């Protein structure tokens, strides 16, 4: 069957069961949008306020559903506006296919209108990228993009399609849906020593990251924890893999991790690290990470082995496959003394209670309570993000979406929109701060246009809270540019966009606002006025260890 490039693009999307695309039209993609118009019964396109919002939406869609997110933008500024979203997905290993239009091949390299070398720009932030120069290559290139995005450690792939390719005609033959390439093969003998080390450990701990989430290895981790009686801690990327109330779950590790988790790792004799890259937010001082422990690393990406922290044993493989084999081999065990010791490490961080004011923990408690166990949370970046990671009641890995690696302020709104569209969950909570919110609050128009039940809860401390916290602690309270004197009236702005707006100063007001917003079933903003002196605690300063932990 002879089709033009745009129709072939649609066909390959359909081959890969893509029914949702985020994007923004423009000159170089007019042909593609014409094909989308003709296929709107099969592929639903969501237009955002800004291409960055679309890229975050594709990311949120992918994280919440496990499917590949697809984003489409025009050439030039359309393409460059995707960059932050692609980099965010790259750092957090999110499968995404970004499709950009470009000027026609005869115009490439001539600084034509809206021409940009997007494959050059995105080289270090994609798993791979392509320019399609021949119509005959288009279908296979797109198929390859889908395959690369989902194989091994997932990530974003960009395909740049010049305008004349979208109009050129060639023969199209249908293909089946792309499946991931085979995972790295590991040998069973690799386990021999590791199993001994684990069986003989007196103070073992499991520490896991986003790789566990990506490979759905939560259940098997849980079984290993129970079978060998091992405590576990996790990175922010793996929040929700274990239930928040599971006694062996020590919570977050690292800079703003729990006292118990950090002390446990620092005193452990064996650390089993799964699907984590020992980032500088977890191993703040890499040479002092778990100084008394034999380190075992399990990761699907060979290049993560020993990259940041040198380990004693490793297995390259998919977390679920490796852990399943490990579960068979390790002994049932008891570590009562170790758990007794860990219980003594546990320290609750004091927070103000009993007054009528809104405190961050209280905000998270109320959201958790009203959202219930199926609550889907998307955060932005900063203090509110840490409070959300620490205090929300996580029960499912795919229910907590946050920009961990890149730390993208402005990620939340787009991602919440994508997650809501992908899951249909009512509502999705977008938890943000006044700093992050101002970056991409324009996506309110998207939430309004499609009437998406995304409730944005903005913790407003009239400051760039995390920056300010560092300035307070480490820069002699010189609050350089972290206290912007903004005059934003959130209720009016929300209403101006066609949303419900609420502003709250007390717990009761907040509870009532959330209940009302949930009842209304559409998009809403809820401003929570909090004290700017609230800190995220505990905190280990950059390059420090558990001994440097600040708890009050």
């Amino acid at each position, binding site marked *: 069957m002879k089709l033009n490039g745009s129709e072939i693009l649609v066909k390959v999307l359909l081959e890969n069961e893509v029914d949702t695309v985020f994007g923004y039209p423009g000159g170089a993609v007019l042909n593609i949008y014409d094909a989308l118009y003709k296929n709107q019964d099969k592929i639903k396109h969501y237009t955002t306020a800004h291409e960055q919002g679309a890229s975050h939406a594709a990311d949120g869609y992918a994280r919440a559903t496990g499917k590949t997110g697809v984003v489409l933008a025009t050439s030039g500024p359309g393409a460059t506006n995707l960059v932050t979203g692609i980099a965010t997905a790259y750092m957090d290993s999110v499968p995404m296919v970004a499709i950009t239009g470009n000027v026609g091949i005869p115009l490439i390299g001539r600084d034509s209108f809206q021409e940009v070398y997007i494959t*050059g720009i995105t*080289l*270090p932030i994609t*798993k791979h990228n392509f320019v399609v120069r021949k119509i005959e290559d288009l279908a296979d290139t797109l198929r390859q993009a889908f395959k690369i995005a989902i194989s091994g450690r997932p990530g974003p792939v960009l395909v740049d399609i010049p305008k004349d390719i979208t109009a050129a005609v060639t023969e199209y033959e249908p293909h089946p849906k792309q499946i991931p390439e085979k995972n790295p093969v590991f040998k069973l003998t690799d386990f021999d020593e590791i199993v001994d080390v684990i069986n003989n450990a007196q103070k073992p701990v499991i520490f896991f990251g986003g790789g566990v989430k990506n490979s759905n290895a939560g259940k098997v981790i849980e079984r290993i924890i129970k079978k060998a009686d091992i405590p576990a801690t996790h990175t922010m990327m793996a929040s929700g893999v274990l239930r928040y109330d599971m006694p062996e779950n020590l919570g977050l590790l690292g800079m703003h991790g729990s006292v118990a988790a950090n002390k446990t790792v620092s005193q452990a004799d064996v650390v089993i690290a799964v699907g984590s890259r020992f980032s500088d937010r977890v191993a703040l001082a890499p040479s002092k990470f778990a100084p008394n422990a034999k380190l075992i690393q399990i990761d699907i*990406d*060979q290049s993560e082995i020993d990259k940041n922290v040198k380990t004693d044993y490793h297995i390259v493989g998919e977390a679920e496959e490796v852990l399943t084999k490990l579960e068979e081999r390790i002994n049932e065990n008891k570590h009562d003394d170790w758990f007794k010791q860990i219980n003594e490490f546990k320290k609750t961080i004091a927070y103000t209670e009993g007054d009528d004011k809104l405190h961050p923990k209280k905000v998270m408690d109320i959201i958790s309570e009203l959202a219930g166990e199926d609550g889907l949370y998307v955060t932005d970046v900063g203090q509110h993000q840490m409070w959300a990671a620490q205090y929300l009641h996580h029960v499912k890995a795919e229910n907590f979406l946050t920009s961990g690696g890149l730390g993208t302020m402005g990620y939340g709104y787009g991602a919440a929109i994508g997650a809501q569209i992908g899951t249909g969950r009512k509502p999705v909570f977008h938890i943000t701060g006044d700093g992050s919110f101002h970056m991409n609050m324009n996506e309110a128009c998207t939430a309004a246009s499609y009437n998406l039940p995304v409730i944005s809860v903005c913790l407003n401390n009239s400051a760039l809270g995390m920056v300010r916290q560092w300035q307070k602690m480490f820069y002699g309270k010189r609050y350089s540019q972290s206290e912007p004197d903004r005059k934003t009236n959130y209720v009016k702005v929300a209403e101006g966009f066609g949303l419900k707006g609420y502003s709250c100063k007390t717990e009761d007001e907040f509870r009532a606002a959330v209940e009302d917003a949930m009842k209304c079933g559409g998009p809403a903003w809820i401003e929570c006025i909090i004290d700017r002196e609230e800190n995220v605690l505990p905190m280990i300063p950059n390059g420090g260890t558990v001994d440097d932990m600040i708890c009050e």
Partner: protein
Amino acid sequence: MKKTYLSLLVDNHEGVLTRLSSLFVQRGFNIDSLTVSATNDETLSRVTIATSGDEEEIKQIVNQTKKLFEYEGIFEIDPHDSLIRELLLVKVACDSSNRSDLLEISGIYKAKIIDVSVGSIVFEVTGKPAKLDSYIENLKDYCILEMCRTGATALQRGDVKLSK
């Protein structure tokens, strides 16, 4: 500093060198030289990387390189069992007062004279990079007008073959 040579096979696609160099710069790898050449298989290019990185860094270079879409094979070249060669072109200023000394030193390194002008001579030398270093060191009393090195290229001895 110890030098390590890596031999890499990649698909002969446009932009593959850009991808490699972007990767190396981004990760801050210590790359001393990098040469790309055609091979007997026209779909493949062979890249020879000289690095003074330590063991950990070399492991990272290898592992990160393996993630490239165009990657087809990589191995570390055993310096005791390999042929590592580089070519140098060097233009040295000289006159009647020092010409014969210059020719004598160059003769020791089997440098070939490929151009002679009134005030300069251009020599061509091939050999192991260390030999070229040594030759340049011995030219330090002369005025080098221009020089150019190709970077190392290498093959394993014997019947071994780097392939996909």
